[in-house]
């Protein structure tokens, strides 16, 4: 039975192996010749966590119990965001060779760039899975909701990835601005500190950051062992709808004439 949703998705579904092959290609090319291969995708987050653990336990004092667990959750999830966003900017411009030579749904280019980051990230999240009980994590039924929270987060990131990949074509400075913004973003998100220790006005500002809401979901589920507050879930959903809508509309308007501006 033809229904409008499957009819819209069919042309994209047809190209599913393109996305797969592009992601595999990127993975193969990235660690080619490196002796430790895929293990390198563990190196970066692991080094970051050790560094921040040192800074936050010996330089600034934090009163949070099981502080490393709190930190690991934040750093890993922020890493997914920052790597996906930083890479997305150049996804379309660096694929100009493909886009100018053959037709395929353009949206697959930034999407496969996101999936590539995600594939590397899944290797990194294994650190958390292995260390979870040792760092003081609790197993509770709420953990089953984690995939949903992660899915929401990925959709949120996807919206931004689409937006930035299109804007980068027109506005080539974007990449550099984004790199700086991501550096600020780390400290404007409750990753190394607890939002409740902040002054009320600062807390208000930090709450405006959409990542704060997502971090709250992850911290509630994985760190505190509780369910996230409903208002945080609703705000996070709101942000996701917003970014995906903007990304989709922008892509629809621009995608057809993209090739002339590359």
């Amino acid at each position, binding site marked *: 039975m033809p229904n409008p949703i499957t009819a819209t998705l069919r042309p994209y579904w047809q190209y599913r192996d393109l996305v797969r092959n592009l992601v595999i*290609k990127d993975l193969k090319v990235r660690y080619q010749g490196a002796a430790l291969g895929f293990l390198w995708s563990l190196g970066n987050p692991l080094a970051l966590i050790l560094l921040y653990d040192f800074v936050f336990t010996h330089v600034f004092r934090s009163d949070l119990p099981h502080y490393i667990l709190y930190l690991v959750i934040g750093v890993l999830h922020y890493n997914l965001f920052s790597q996906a966003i930083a890479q997305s900017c150049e996804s379309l411009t660096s694929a100009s060779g493909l886009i100018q030579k053959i037709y395929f749904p353009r949206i697959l280019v930034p999407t496969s760039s996101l999936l590539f980051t995600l594939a590397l990230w899944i290797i990194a999240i294994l650190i958390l899975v292995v260390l979870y009980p040792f760092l003081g994590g609790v197993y509770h039924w709420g953990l089953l909701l984690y995939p949903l929270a992660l899915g929401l987060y990925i959709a949120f990131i996807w919206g931004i990835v689409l937006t930035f990949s299109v804007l980068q074509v027109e506005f080539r400075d974007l990449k550099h601005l984004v790199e700086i913004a991501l550096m600020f973003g780390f400290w404007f998100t409750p990753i190394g500190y607890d939002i409740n220790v902040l002054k009320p006005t600062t807390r208000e500002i930090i709450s405006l950051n959409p990542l704060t809401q997502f971090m709250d979901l992850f911290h509630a589920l994985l760190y505190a062992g509780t369910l996230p507050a409903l208002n945080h879930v609703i705000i996070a959903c709101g942000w996701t709808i917003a970014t995906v809508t903007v990304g989709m509309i922008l892509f629809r308007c621009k995608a057809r004439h993209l090739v002339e501006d590359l």
Partner: protein
Amino acid sequence: MPPAVIVENVSKEFILRHNRAMGLKTRFLALFHKSKRERREHFLALDNVSFTLEQGEALGLLGHNGSGKSTLMQIIAGILQPTKGRVITHGRVAPLIQLGVGFNPELTGYENIFLNASLYGFLNKDIRPKVKDIIEFSELENFIDTPLKHYSSGMQMRLGFAVAVHLQPDILLADEILAVGDQAFQEKCLAKIAEMRNKGMSLILVSHSQEQIEKFCNQYVRLDKGVMVEKGYVDRSTTTSELATLKTI
């Protein structure tokens, strides 16, 4: 049977952007310096081109450099959008605007076959049964597990051509690609195209060579500065000369 390709009053206008501001610095300087400001020039690459290609027929596109042949091919392939008019195609279009699109030098020839084919919208499982034929046709059996960066340019083109023709397209768009490899391989390619034509494939061939068009096509279109100046059939009935002659209608 619907025609394979209908090109209906297609026009394409490009905007040439001189001094295009790509970054903040240029945008800022442009506020003060008139000479740094972006100038836009409109350029009509195609002007009201129309033709119909029936299924199983072959059409030759003739014209000088810059006459709009490649732009027209890109529009038929769906890469560019026409400014005016429309293009309707029936069947799977394989644009051979460049051979081996998406080939990655770090991957092996074997891996590149799958990457290239998936760009044409093929699933890996559909390609697996064809791989043997593709490798055999490309004559690269000994090199197929070597990274593509060690291939010569002729070898890469052979692989690209082998993939494209084994995807069984309904419409083949060939943009001066028939200069593949050495003489022997070139003849093999031409024979392959002729064989596919016999099976009912439609062909649009861009060429500078009138001789090649006379050999392969039964109709032709000549473009000059984006305008269709001539359109006609290749006349094979003439017995006086060995070559068929182009006959304008």
